[in-house]
């Protein structure tokens, strides 16, 4: 059985409202803070990363992987999940608009590889992603992720 991504998630928020991409990243950042993974400074660092490098974090249609680099603002590392009720434009021509923001924090470049493998498995499963996008509650998200881990 593969790592259950639900266990790696610091927080799960479903059908959230965000006015723009900054607000969407703030939600993902707040989830990391609530889970004890990062401080508020990391949220600002994630936004600064997009301002500096552009919206490349929108890595697949509808999916943004918000993250910055390891820093003192990262306490333990973690992952947060925010699905949006109303899709948000990040300015990525190929993959806008975004309906799912994953917040990622890591303490170093190696420690989170198992989590990334589980994340890659989930995000590349288009049937599962359709179910996850419409999940109304955190429990529904956990249930789908649990099924995926058991089947892997």
């Amino acid at each position: 059985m593969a790592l259950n991504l639900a266990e790696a998630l610091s927080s799960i928020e479903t059908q959230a409202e965000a006015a723009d991409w900054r607000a969407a990243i703030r939600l993902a950042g707040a989830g990391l803070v609530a889970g004890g993974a990062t401080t508020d400074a990391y949220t600002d660092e994630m936004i600064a990363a997009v301002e500096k490098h552009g919206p490349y974090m929108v890595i697949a249609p509808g999916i943004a992987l918000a993250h910055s680099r390891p820093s003192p603002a990262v306490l333990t590392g973690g992952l947060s999940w925010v699905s949006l009720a109303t899709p948000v434009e990040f300015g990525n021509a190929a993959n806008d608009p975004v309906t799912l923001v994953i917040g990622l924090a890591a303490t170093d470049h190696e420690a989170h590889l198992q989590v990334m493998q589980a994340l890659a498995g989930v995000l590349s499963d288009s049937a599962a992603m359709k179910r996850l996008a419409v999940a109304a509650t955190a429990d529904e998200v956990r249930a789908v992720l649990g099924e995926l881990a058991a089947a892997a």
Partner: protein
Amino acid sequence: MKIVAVCGMGIGTSVLLKMNAEKVLAKLGIDADVEAADMGVARGAAQTAEIVLTSEELAEELGDVPAQVIVIKNFFDLEEITEKLTAAVE
């Protein structure tokens, strides 16, 4: 063959891209070493790599390197990665 997967931070996007590129390379039977790197490291690594995998925004930021730069739109579309890698190694 040396391939570098590049992202801004070296912990997220490039790691996912490296994982999916390795899957594709294994299927194609291509022996390659894929390294995930942030923009700073990549400018150096791209001098000795044959292929750089990255996104459109970062390809512009990376600028001119001797390696062949492949832009991937959907990091989870293994068909897109397969097609572009196959074309690049031929």
